[in-house]
Each structure stands twice: as C-alpha cells, then as structure tokens.
C-alpha cells in the first residue's frame, strides 16, 4: 500500500465488470445555451474512462450533472442501476466521489482533518454521540482516523498529516483532494483535470496513482487536457465537443478519428462561419446539419487552444462553472 508500483496497463486488464455509472440522454441548458447536449456515457467497474474535449466543450458541466451540483435539464444518471438524486451529498453517499478542477480543499484544516471530512458519509456519529462520547463514538473515531491515515499513506502524505492543507505545495494539494475523495470509499472516482499545472514527473506520478486506485477496484472517470496522460491511462476515451459526444472508443480509435483531429487542430470545413461559440450552439440547437456545423464551430474555437494539450486555459470552463 505504501509504494505505488504499477506498470503500464496490459490489454488483459480491460473492462471486467458490468456498468457502474450510466448517464443517458443528459442535457443541460442554461437559458438559451445548451452546454451538454444529449450525452450518453457508461463507466464499467474496473475501468478508467477519459473525457476530453476543447475548452468550453462542457466537460465540467457534465461532471457537475453527474455529481448533483447541477440538476440536468433532461436525462438520468444512474449508479449501480439506481438513479442518482440530484443532491451532491446523496451522490457521494451512493458512492461517487469527485475532485475539482480548481482545487477546493478546506484550506484552514489540517491534511488529516480534510481526509476525515471525506469520511463523513461512512460514519454515523451525530451531535448527541459526540457530546456523550460513549465507547462506540471512540471506536468509530479511532477507526476513521486509522482509515484516514491509511489513505494518506497510500497517497504519500502521511508525514504531513498535521500540516495545514493551505501550506502544502500545489502538487500535494492535488493529491490531497484525491485522498479526500477516496476517504468516502467510492466505487467511482471522478477526477477533473488532476494534472493541470503539473510538470511531467508529477504527471507521471499521478498516472501511477490513478492505476493504483483502479487496482483497488475503484473505477475512474477523468477529464484531462494532457493527451499523453489520457491515452496512456484510459481504457476508453470519450470526446466531448460543443456539448456533444463526438466519438467514444479506445485510444487508437479516438486518436485516428478525423473529427477529433479537426476539433483539436481546427481545420475549418468549407463554408464554416467564423462566428462566436454561442451562435454555433444556437445553430446546432436549431438542429440542422448537426454534426458538421458543430465541428466547424468547434474547429474555429479550438484554434487558439489547439496546442494546449498540456496546460489548459481554464477560462471557458470557469465561465461554465459560474453559471
């Protein structure tokens, strides 16, 4: 547990279970803007699934729909066959944990306390039991601490358990966010850009961490901009462009798909309007020539971000979050 030694995945470690998370027909509209348009996605147990797409493609919005931060306009999300209620705490309770694109730790709490907060759904002790402090309370508290320290060992932060989380370096804050999510004993972990702002070494370490998490039997759904990271890691990759799922499949299929290349490298098709993203969305919403138009719009938008494979400019997604 203490050391993470995981080699490259072999094809033999392909999906080994039934569907864990099933999102079907998820649509998210903000007023006139449709950020996520009829997306289906399945994550099987034991799988690492990647979600990529240009900035503003709706990846984080889709994540927020999955975890109950947003109530999808249409569509359902089910976990282990049961429909998830659109309340974040109930989603976590059900077994879906997440991290955030822009780190959201409890910065004035210690590292250990952060992880203990993650244990919230797996413990029952209420106010009364905290006031009375019976033997059951002590047992549960000791168990929580033990488990939290195990997770910190696993993630490699055990020696910093008493530090304030705000004082950790950036890479360790990212790790701590993952540790906190793991503490809720999830069956599925959603990682929103876990390597944003990391150097290649740290990225590789994160890669190994994700494999180690998968080996514990936790399925992972990860948003990332770092293509090498994604293609090394994922059993399947889904591409989201302009709120729509363009392609889904293994790394090879996705890498060779022309539409994906177009979306990232930004080759405008003939007659593509050089307009703003919103106009493209509305056009697409109106429903004519759905795919080609959407690609074209995405192509023009992705031009600037085409080489942003590693360090993503968060502006688009931030905007989405604020809505």
């Amino acid at each position: 547990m203490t050391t993470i030694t995981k080699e490259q995945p072999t094809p033999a470690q392909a999906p080994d279970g039934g569907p864990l998370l099933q999102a079907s027909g998820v649509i998210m509209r903000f007023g006139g803007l449709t950020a996520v348009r009829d997306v289906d996605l399945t994550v099987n147990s034991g799988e690492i699934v990647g979600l990529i797409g240009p900035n503003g493609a709706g990846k984080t919005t889709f994540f927020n729909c999955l975890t109950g931060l947003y109530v999808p306009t249409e569509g359902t999300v089910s976990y282990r066959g049961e429909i998830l209620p659109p309340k974040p705490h109930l989603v976590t309770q059900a077994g879906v944990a997440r991290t955030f694109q822009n780190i959201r730790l409890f910065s004035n709490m210690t590292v250990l306390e952060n992880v203990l907060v993650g244990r919230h759904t797996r413990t029952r002790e209420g106010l009364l039991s905290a006031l009375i402090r019976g033997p059951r309370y002590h047992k549960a508290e000791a168990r929580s601490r033990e488990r939290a320290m195990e997770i910190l060992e696993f993630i490699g932060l055990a020696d910093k358990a008493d530090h304030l989380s705000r004082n950790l370096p950036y890479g360790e804050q990212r790790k701590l966010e993952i540790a906190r999510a793991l503490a809720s004993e999830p069956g599925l972990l959603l990682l929103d850009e876990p390597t944003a702002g990391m150097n290649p070494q740290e990225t590789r370490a994160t890669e190994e961490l994700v494999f180690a998490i998968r080996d514990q039997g936790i399925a992972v759904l990860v948003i990332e901009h770092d293509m090498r990271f994604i293609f090394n890691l994922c059993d399947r990759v889904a591409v989201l462009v302009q709120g729509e799922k363009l392609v889904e499949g293994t790394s090879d299929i996705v890498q060779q798909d022309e539409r994906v290349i177009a979306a990232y490298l930004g080759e405008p098709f003939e007659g593509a309007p050089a307009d703003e993203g919103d106009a493209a969305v509305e056009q697409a919403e109106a429903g004519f020539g759905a795919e080609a138009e959407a690609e074209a719009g995405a192509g023009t938008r992705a031009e600037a971000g085409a080489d942003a494979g590693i360090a993503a400019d968060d502006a688009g997604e931030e905007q989405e979050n604020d809505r």
Partner: protein
Amino acid sequence: MTDIPVAAAETAAVTTAKPSARRIAPFVPLPLTAARAVTLIGVVATIAATFMSWTYTTDFPGDLTVTGYPGGLQVLTLVSGILTGLFALGAFGLKGLRWLAPNHSHNAVLLLALGTFATTWYTVIAIAQELGGLANLDPGGFVAAVGTLVLLIGALALPIHRHPQEDPNAEYFELGRLSTVPVAVAGYKWLRELRPHHTDLPVPDPTRLPGWVQRLIITLAAAVGLEVLTYGLATGYTEIFLGFLIVVVFAIWALSASGLLRQFSGLTAAHRSFANTMGFLAALAYPFAQNDEHYANLGVNILIFGTVALGLNIVVGLTGLLDLGYVAFLGVGAYAAALVSGSPFSIWSGVQFPFWAAALTGMAASLVFGVLIGAPTLRLRGDYLAIVTLGFGEIFRIVVNSLDGVSGPKVTNGPNGISQIPDLSIFGYNLGDSHDVGSVTLGRFANYYLLMLLITVIVVLIFTRAADSRIGRSWVAIREDETAATAMGINGFRVKLIAFALGASLAGLAGTVSAHVTYNVVPSPYQFAGAAPPNSAFLLAAVVLGGMGTVSGPILGAALLYLIPEKLGFLQRYELFAFGLALVLIMRFRPEGIIPNRRRQLEFHEDETLVPGKRPLGDDTVPVSSAGA
C-alpha cells in the same frame, strides 16, 4: 591557509546580503555594562519611589500621601518595577533567575520597563491634571517619574532582538500613493525595523522538568491568574483600572517576549486535563477571594455574556454563519424562564418550575425559535443570512414590546417586562440568601456566580466535544468551502441547522439564569447595538476580538467588553466610537483575534506541536502580543 580569509569574506558577504537575518541592536547606543547599570538603577529608584509620598492631599483616589507604605496606583508601579528588576536580572544571567528569560533576549525587560514607565507617568500626569498642576506632586512623584525614565533609557540601551533588516528594494504597496514618496517609504521602513522580534527564538522544552514541578507551575499560574483577575475586577476607580490594564498588557506581552508563555502553553498542552481543572478551581475560588457582592455580580454577568458568546462562536466561528440577531435567543430563554418562574407578572403566575425544568424550557424555547428561523434562512448564503438574522433580532424585540394586551395579546407586559422574578431554589438551597461556607459568606450574586460557572463548564464541554468530532469537522468544512463540503457528502442544510439550533439553545440556557439574576426581563437590552452588553453587536465583537473558533477567546473577549464600559465610566459618549476604533485596529494588526485559533497558529508555526487554546476561565496567560510586536 590562503582560502580561509576568502571563506570568511564570503560568509560576511552572505550575512550582509541577507536582509532577513536576525538583528540584535539597542535603540540607544550605550556600552552593555552601562546599560545594565542604568536599568538596575532605574529599577531601584522606581521601587524606592513607591514607598514615598507622591502627593499632598488625599483628593486623588487611592491615597498616595503615605510615606513608607505604597497604595493605589503605587502598588501597580511597585509590582511592575519588581517584575522589571527580576526579568532584568534573569536576562543579565543572574544565577537562579535565568529561567525568567528562557530565550536569552532582553525584549521582555524593555516591554516591562515600558509598562512601568507608562503606568507611572500616567499616574503622575493624572495627579497633576486632576488636582490642578505640578505643584500637587510631592518629591516622591518626581522621583518616580525620573526613576522610571532612567529605567526606560537603560532598557532602551539593552541589545534588543529586532525585526530583521528589510530588503532595500522592498516595495510597500500598503502605503498606497505614498509608496512613491521616498521620505514616507524610508520612515515607514524605519518604523517597521524598530519592532522588537522574538517569536522565533528557541526556548528549552519545559516538559523535561519533573512532573510534579510542571503541575506546581500550572497551579501557581492559576493562582496568580486568579489573583490578578480578582484585583482587576475589584479596582474601585477608573484611574487604577487603566493603570491595571497598562501593567497587565505589558506584563503579558513581556511574558510572551521572554518565551515563558510559549513554555507555559507547552506545559498546559502536556497536562491538558490538569490545567483545565486548575483553571476551573481558580474560577471557582473567585467568589471566595473577595467579599464584595458587587464584584460577584460582575463575575455573573461576565459568565452569562461569555457563555452566550461561546454559543455564538459555534455559529460564527465554527460554521461561518454570520448571525446578527443572536441576542434574541438569549431573550427567548430569559422570557421563557420568566414566564414559568412564578413571578406575579407572568401570565402563568401560578406556575413555578424547578430550576432544571425552567432551564430545559428556556433551552427548548430557544431551540424551537432557532429551528424556525434557521429552516427558511439557512438555505441562503453569506450576506443574505446576515440580513435575515438582523431582521429577526429586531422582530423579536418589537414583538415582545407589543405583546402587552393593547397592541397584541397580553403575554410579556410590553416594555414593562416581567418583574419580581423570584430567586432560584435548588435542592432547598435558596440562591437569594446569603450562606456561610466556612468563614466566608457567599451572597446572592456569589451563589449565582457558582451556578453560572457550572453552566459555563457544561457549555465549554459541549463546545469542545462538538467541535472535535464528525459534526464539528463538517461545520468547519462548510465554513471553508460549502460546495466542496457537500461534494464530500455533507448535508449542508442539515448540518448548518444543527449548529444554529445548538447555538440558540445554549444562549437560551444562559438566558434562563440571567432572568433570575436581574429579577426582571424587559425587551430593551435585546437589541442589535447599544452602549452596554449584551447586544448582538457586542456578542459578535466578543467572538471576533477574542478569537473565532476558540474556547477561551470569546470568554476573554466577553470579559473585556463587559469590564471596559463598566470600569471606564468617562468614555460614556465615546464608547461606541472607541469600540469601533478598537475593532478596526485589532482587525488590522491581529485579524485572528487575541487568542488565535489552533489552526491559525499552525499557519504561522508550521513545525511546532499543536498548542490547543482550550482553557476555561481563570488562567490569565493569554498570548496577547506576538503579532502586535
């Protein structure tokens, strides 16, 4: 051989180039032995002066005319002078006193000398000003003034650990437009470098002492704390209270500067429960340590105010919900207790609950109100919640004012309130009567003080146990980041409602006692802001000033906010202005409050062991100063 000078030159270059290096320099250039001599001469002169007569008449409060026996403010000068002498001898390395300066710095001597100087000169100036001229000073007064001046000069000439030299290219953006004016920048930089600096000096670990010595030290500290507290509460006139404040502030600052305070917090952390017990015993001994009912009354009111502030601390300090109408819950508890107290003015005048039932009634009433107010409003965040609670606080007062049988149903008698509330009787022990315990007579207020102390201990227990548990962690998580907290599985609304309801019921509990202590309840004290506690603004100020999220912080804050208007009568019209100013200054220079939260402390002292700020009332050892230095 040749490379040694090079290396030396290199290290020299490094030290001069490093602006953050520790700096030891006196403020006044004198040889060290001369400085020490001058300091000790000043100490001797100061102590001698307190045995002389300072003024001709007894018109100045405290009778400073007696030769051979210090009185009033002279006692303060004497104590401060003796302390300065002891700390100076310790810092100079006198065998047997070295433990007074565990970090081997002279900073504590300078601070104590400053305190001695300030309180003595304040006295001398007050004599001259109140009696009309320097002619009213006896030679003793002049000796004292000159002696403390000499002492101060000597202390200023001692080598002081000062703030490190600043980077010559540092830019001071906080100066705003002035940061482009070289003179202003130079002056500001000079002022910054003047500051003494001692927080990072190493001190020996006190826990290497034998266990019984450690316990003895804690016991002595509790006793001294009680003595100081009793003296301060019993100060009879404004001048002596001001002098007391000056001496205490500088003494605590000096304790912190010498490193003793840090050693002491190490001790209390090692013997937590023992320290808590001693603190409790000291608080318990308070009514036995003085025989004037008035001061026991002060004690009761401070405890009531402090308990309510602790309840508010759950809501504001732990959960981060800004509640501007909190005093209303105190009012609900007080009115509920008054209605079932058997008072002839209550609508149920025949009903007289025993105390435990009345306390539960008050708590339950506040709890119900807390849930009623919380359920719709806690879905709001930040400013909205503050506005709604502010509105609720005012609604409570206005409604209680109107339930007088004219504007509404007759429940509370409107502005006349419910009076003639009988005294409590617990197990046949009537709290209204005086009782003899041994040779000490416990009066009515002393009885209530003891009852209230018991309640305070219960509330402290509730607070610490709740704060250090699953629910407490979820409160703090919500304060830090509500979105992330809900994503971690915390039901934000439910957890916030629990905090709100718990805070409300603790205030209600304090309210039940306060109704009996004051004999009557009227609507007027339960307002948002006023010149005297309790009101919502003062409660909030007590929490913020004392230190959010700590136990001793709000109690200390409440004590200060209660005592200062009580003791400094002359402020009266300027009281709110002075509070506003004090709040602004504290928020600017010590935003974490007088007693910083353990988490805030960690922020500054990453590698130290956790030093919990958890001590009940009674021990006065409060790290007042380190950031102000």
